[in-house]
């Protein structure tokens, strides 16, 4: 399998000994992992496990207390601008200026990333996400699920090689969440992009992720294919594993 060759030879993100201490609290505690080209890697764990903090360090929003982050083989802190051109981020906790229309907002980000033919690209993505009809509506008039999708479109504008998503499906209804997952999988397959994402939806984790990383109190307590982690903890489902870990450790 080509994918497996890539997986063995092409780490696109390399993290070693990553630690973040906030006022004595070890939010992320000496974690190391790699992410491979074309892989969907799911980050899961209880509230406060350190998922968001990890993502923020990967986006250079938060500086690590110690440890190394390499993306595309480059040190993140020293190559921030170069790396951020090729990645993107979305989350259910970001939004966009309310008094601008969807199109205006997306055009701003298209300019920010210097995208060629922005209009065509935006319309294409709006179609993919089935929200073409809201293009001239102001963000204020959208539902939270629609805003989430607009933010996801923003995250795809620059054709990122890596997508960082923090609870991307949190405010979507089951139907739209399902469609979004399919779309992300499709994009991953067609363009070979890598996705690192977090979610509290264990079914989604199993369905989406090539591999998962289980974080608890800032530490990695399990890592591998979903079925491997399930077997390791003798759980019937990932949800089962989650409950076992969250309640026992």
């Amino acid at each position: 399998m080509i994918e497996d060759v890539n997986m063995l030879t092409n780490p696109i993100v390399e993290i070693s000994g990553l630690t973040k201490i906030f006022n004595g609290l070890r939010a992320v505690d000496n974690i190391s992992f790699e992410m491979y080209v074309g892989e969907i890697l799911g980050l899961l764990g209880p509230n406060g496990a350190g998922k968001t903090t990890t993502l923020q360090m990967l986006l250079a929003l938060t500086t690590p207390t110690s440890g190394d982050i390499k993306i595309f083989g480059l040190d993140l802190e020293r190559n921030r601008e170069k790396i951020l051109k090729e990645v993107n981020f979305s989350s259910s906790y970001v939004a966009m200026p309310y008094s601008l229309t969807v199109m205006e907002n997306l055009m701003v980000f298209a300019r920010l990333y210097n995208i060629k033919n922005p209009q065509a690209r935006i319309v294409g993505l709006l179609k993919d996400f089935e929200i073409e009809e809201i293009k001239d509506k102001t963000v204020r008039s959208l539902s939270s699920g629609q805003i989430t999708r607009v933010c996801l479109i923003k995250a795809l504008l620059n054709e990122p090689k890596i997508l960082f998503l923090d609870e991307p499906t949190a405010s979507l209804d089951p139907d739209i969440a399902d469609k979004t997952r399919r779309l992300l999988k499709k994009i991953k397959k067609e363009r070979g992009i890598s996705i690192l994402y977090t979610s509290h939806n264990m079914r989604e984790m199993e369905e989406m992720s090539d591999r998962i990383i289980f974080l608890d109190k800032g530490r990695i307590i399990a890592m591998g294919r979903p079925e491997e982690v399930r077997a390791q903890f003798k759980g019937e489902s990932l949800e089962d594993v989650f409950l076992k870990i969250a309640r026992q450790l």
Partner: protein
Amino acid sequence: MKIHRVLALVIRHLYLYKRSIPRLMEVFYWPFLDLVIWGFITIYLTKFKGTLPDFIAFLLGALILWDILFRSQQGLSVSFLEDMWARNLLNIFVSPIRPIEYIFALMLVSIVKLLLASIVMVIFAWLFYSFNIFLLGLSLIPMIVNLVIMGWGLGIITMALILRLGQEAEVLAWAVAFLFQPVSAVFYPVSVLPPFLQTIAQFIPASHIFEGMRIIISGGGFPMHDVLWATALNFIYILTALVFFYWNFSIVRRKGLLARIGE
């Protein structure tokens, strides 16, 4: 510095005014109201004080120039708050943008807003009170440039403080310029201040500009000395402000506050 990134943000902020009447009011309404009220007050006062013929000119000139400083500071800090309120800062800072590009974009936005507000004030000062600010002539240009730059300096410091202290520090966006007003000798000469405030005023760029304005209005020629002082001070102000901003930005990144701002 990548100009496409700067322009993207300028356009983002100008879009805001396309559909928002309250924001447009902020640009036009307050300067207009300021002018009306102060204009009538000065007319009223001059009825009693025939001995101060330049009184109206002093006050209206001061009012217009102060508004320039205030707005250039606001242009930065309020635009920054807009991004914070819209929960848009993360979208911006996960892009390859550099902090200096962000600041530069907001400076351009502040110039646009300033031009609009100034046009309104200048026109109405002339229509209502026959006060023609252009009588100050070309000397007006270095004075305005200095006020704008001091406003930017204060604006950058305000942004840094809001970044660092969070939403509670929002009020600074409106307050910081006024903190400097007493020692800026806007409506009165530096000489009326008590000695220790006079010393402080020496180190405020704006005080030199307002002194200079009064020199021009009373026919004393171009206040080269004051303009040079203001320029030198401003150079230090803007550099200090940028260093202060970058220093706070790195602390904010260390404390992981960038993602939490506005919450």
